[in-house]
C-alpha cells in the first residue's frame, strides 16, 4: 500500500502544479505569486481542520464534529472578549475549549465500542447547539453576550468590533507570505513529525491497520486515540479562531458546510477511510488542490453550488480511481504469475 501512496503524493504534487498552470492560463492573475499566496487565506480553515483529521482517519476512526468545534471556538473567543478578556487570551481559551471538545470525543471513542461516526455525530449536534445557545443563555442570565451592537446585529453578523490587533493576525505577512499560511505550514510540520517520526504516530498506523493486534502488542490504544481526537478538535478550533480574525466576527455557524471539503482533502490526500494509511503531506497537497480549484472556479464565475457538485464528484472519482487502480494492479500481478506457468 505504501508503494502506491508514495506515487500518490507525487501525483498530487504534479496535479497541483498543473492545476495552477491551467487556472493561470485562464486567468493570468493566478500567476502572480502574491495572489497565489493570498488565495490560501480562503481555504486555510479547511487545512487546519483536515491536517489533524488525517491522524484520526489513520486510526480507522472519523471526526465529523470539526465544523461545530469551529463555531464553538469562535463563539467562545467572542464571548470571552465581550466579557472583557484580552482578545489573544480569549483566543487561547477558545483553543483550550477545542482541546476539551476533542478530549470528550476521544474519551468516548477510546473507552466505548461505539462507532466514532455516531459519537462525533452526537457531538456535532451538541457542540453546534452549544455554540448557538451560549450567547442566548448568557444573555438570558444578564450578561451582555451579544456584543456592543446588540442582538439584531449579532444575528446578522455575529460578535463584531474585534480589536485591530486580532484582525491583523490574518492580514499580516512575512515578506509576501501571509501569516496564516505560515501557521498552516508550521502546523503541518509539527503534525508531520508527530505522525511520521514519533512512536505516537506509529501507534496510530498500528491501531488503524489492526486494532486487535495493536492491543496484543501492548500499544497504548486509549492514550493514542485520545491524543488524535484532541489534535483533530484543536485543528478545528484553530480554524475557528483564524476564521474569526479573517471574517472579523465571531459566529456560531462559522464552520458552514466545510465538512465535505475537509473530508475530501483527507481522502484525496491518500488516507484510507478504513485506516492504516495516510500522510500529512498528502492531505496538505490535496487540500491546496481543492482550495485553489475553488478559487479558480469562483474566478471563472462558477457558482458556489456548482463547486459543491464538483468537489463531490472529485471525491467519488478519486476513490473510484483508487479502487480501480488497485484492482488493475492485482490483475497485472496475476497475469504475470500466470504467464510464468507456460515455461513450466
Amino acid at each position, binding site marked *: 500500500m505504501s508503494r502506491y501512496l508514495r506515487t500518490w503524493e507525487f501525483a498530487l504534487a504534479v496535479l497541483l502544479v498543473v492545476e495552477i498552470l491551467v487556472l493561470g492560463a485562464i486567468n493570468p492573475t493566478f500567476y502572480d505569486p502574491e495572489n497565489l499566496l493570498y488565495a490560501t487565506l480562503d481555504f486555510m480553515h479547511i487545512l487546519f481542520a483536515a491536517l489533524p483529521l488525517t491522524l484520526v482517519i489513520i486510526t480507522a476512526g472519523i471526526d465529523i464534529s470539526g465544523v461545530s468545534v469551529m463555531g464553538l471556538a469562535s463563539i467562545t473567543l467572542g464571548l470571552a472578549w465581550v466579557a472583557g478578556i484580552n482578545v489573544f487570551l480569549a483566543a487561547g481559551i477558545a483553543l483550550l475549549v477545542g482541546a476539551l471538545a476533542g478530549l470528550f470525543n476521544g474519551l468516548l471513542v477510546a473507552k466505548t465500542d461505539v462507532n466514532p461516526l455516531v459519537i462525533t455525530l452526537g457531538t456535532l449536534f451538541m457542540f453546534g447547539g452549544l455554540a448557538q445557545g451560549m450567547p442566548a443563555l448568557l444573555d438570558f442570565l444578564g450578561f451582555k453576550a451579544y456584543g456592543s451592537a446588540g442582538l439584531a446585529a449579532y444575528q446578522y453578523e455575529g460578535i463584531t468590533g474585534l480589536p485591530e490587533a486580532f484582525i491583523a493576525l490574518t492580514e499580516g505577512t512575512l515578506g509576501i507570505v501571509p501569516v496564516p499560511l505560515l501557521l498552516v505550514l508550521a502546523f503541518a510540520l509539527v503534525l508531520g513529525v508527530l505522525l511520521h517520526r514519533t512512536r505516537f504516530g*506509529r501507534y496510530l498506523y*498500528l491501531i488503524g*491497520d489492526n486494532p486487535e493486534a495493536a492491543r496484543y502488542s501492548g500499544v497504548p490504544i486509549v492514550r493514542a486515540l485520545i491524543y488524535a481526537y484532541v489534535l483533530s478538535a484543536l485543528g478545528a478550533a484553530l480554524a475557528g479562531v483564524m476564521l474569526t480574525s479573517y471574517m472579523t466576527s465571531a459566529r456560531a455557524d462559522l464552520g458552514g458546510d466545510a465538512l465535505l471539503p475537509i473530508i475530501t482533502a483527507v481522502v484525496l490526500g491518500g488516507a484510507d477511510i478504513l485506516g492504516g494509511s495516510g500522510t500529512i503531506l498528502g492531505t496538505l497537497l490535496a487540500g491546496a488542490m481543492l482550495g485553489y480549484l475553488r478559487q479558480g472556479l469562483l474566478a471563472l464565475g462558477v457558482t458556489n453550488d456548482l463547486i459543491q457538485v464538483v468537489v463531490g464528484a472529485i471525491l467519488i472519482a478519486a476513490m473510484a480511481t483508487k479502487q480501480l487502480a488497485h484492482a488493475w494492479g492485482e490483475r497485472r500481478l496475476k497475469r504475470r504469475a500466470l504467464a510464468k*506457468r507456460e515455461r513450466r
Partner: protein
Amino acid sequence: MADQSPLLELRDVWKVFSGVPVLKGVAFDLRPGEIQALLGGNGSGKSTLMKIIAGAYRMDAGEMRFMGAPVRVESPGAAQRLGIYMVPQEPHVFPHLSVRENLSLGLDLDPEAFQKKLAAVLGQLDFEVNLEEPAAFLSIAQQQLLEIVRGLLRDARVLIFDEPTSALTFREAEQLFDQMRRLAGQGIGIVFISHRLGEVMEVAHRVSVLRDGVMVLQAPKERLTPHDLVRAMLPGTAEEGEGPLEAGGTCRGGRPVLEVRGLSSEAFREASFDLYPGEVLGIAGLVGSGRTELAEAIVGLDPHARGQVRVAGTPLPHRSPAICQRHGLVYVPEDRHAHGIFLDLPSLHTMTAGILPRLGRFLLASAKERRIGERFVDLLNIKLQGLDQIAGTLSGGNQQKVVLAKALAGEPRVVILDEPTRGIDASARRDVYRLIRRLTAQGLGVILISSELEEVVELADRVLVMYRGRITGELEGDAITLERVTEASFGMALEAAP
C-alpha cells in the same frame, strides 16, 4: 461405490493471489457415491481448491466439469444452484438472527417443508439446540454442527467438509461419518479436508494429497499407508535423515521464571504451575480446553481473570500486554492474522510494534529500528525483499517469523507460543523448532501450546494437559508419549508413570 463417470472434474487449475501462485495446474476428480479425503500441509492450497469448487473463489486458469458438462462457477450461489455445497471450517454465523433462520437462509423452501426436513436432519445428529435463540449464544462446537446441518439440509450432489471434526468429540465425529456414509450411499460425492490421518484411513474411499499447490497423489485408500501420506505431504521431515533435534536439556536451576497461581476466568479454572528457565513446557489439549484463554489471561489480555502471576519473582497484579512485555513476558498469539501481524504495513513495523518506547524518547531512532529488524531477519531466517516489504505479501511461515520477531525484540524471559507452526510450510516449521531450542539454551522459559500433539511430544520437557478448562495432568521427560498425551487431552485419567 460405482465407477461411473466422474461427478466433478478439474483440470489444470491455477489460482494466483497477489502475484503468488497458490494452485499450480491442479487436477482433481470426484466420483458419485465416493468419500474422498483431501490432505495437505498448511499452505498447500487445499482450502483454496475447495473454495474454487464451491464458488467462493474463481480459478484463474483451468477448467471444471460437473456431471460431464463444462461449468463456470462464479459465486457460491451459482455453486449451490448446481448442487455443490461446502461446509466451512470457520462457521458462518449470523449472530443476531435465530438459529432457525441461520439454517433456513439460502434455502428455497417454504416453512413447512423446511420444518420437516430440519426435523429429519436434527433427528439423525445429536444436535440439541434452541432454534429460536439468537445464534450468538451457540458454542463453537454447536456452530460447527450448525454448518454441518446446513450442508445436510441441501440436496447437494457434492458436499465438501473443511476440517469438520476439529471441534467435535469422538462421538459427534462418528455420527458425522455415519452421515457421510449414508449420503455417499445415496450417490452424493463427498470431499473432506482433514489433517487427521486416523479419520482419513477410516472413512475415505480415495485419498488425495496436495503439496505446495500441486496434486501429488490421488489413490484409493487400500493402496496407501499413513506413512505414504505423510511422505507425500511433507517429504522433508518424514526422512529421519533430518536428524532429531537435540533432546532438550533443561537448565532447571533454582527459581521459576514464571509462577501462575490459581488463575481463573471464564474458560478455565484454578490454573497453577511453574515454568523454569531453559525449559519447554508444553500445554496440550483439544480445541476448547481453555489453553489460549489461559495464555491470554497470563499476559493480561483478559480483564476478568483472577489469580496471581509472578515473573522472576516479581508479582504482576495488574497486567497488560505492555506491562508484561516490560517484565519480559511475551505471548505469540494463535491467530496471527487477527492478533499478531499488521498486514498492510511494512514488516519492520510489526517487528518493532512492541518495543517502540525503547526506540527513542521523542523521535523514533529509525537506524536503530532497522538494525533490530535486520538482526531478526538474520536470526529467524526470514525471507523478504527488504524490511519494508508489506507483511501481507509474505508467506505464512515468514509472517509467523515476523510475529516471533516482535515477541523476541524485547529480549523476554518467558515466551508463550500458541500454535506457532500452524499454517506454515515444513522448512519454516523446522526453523521455529530450532529457534525454540536456541531460546531455551539461552535460558528463556518457553510455553508451547499446540494441537499438534506430535510437536508437543517432541519438543517439550514437561507437558501440562488441559481438559475442559482445568489442568488435569502433568507429564515429564520419558513419560511424555503421544498416547498418554492424547488420552489425557480427551479427559482420560493418566496412569502413574512407570
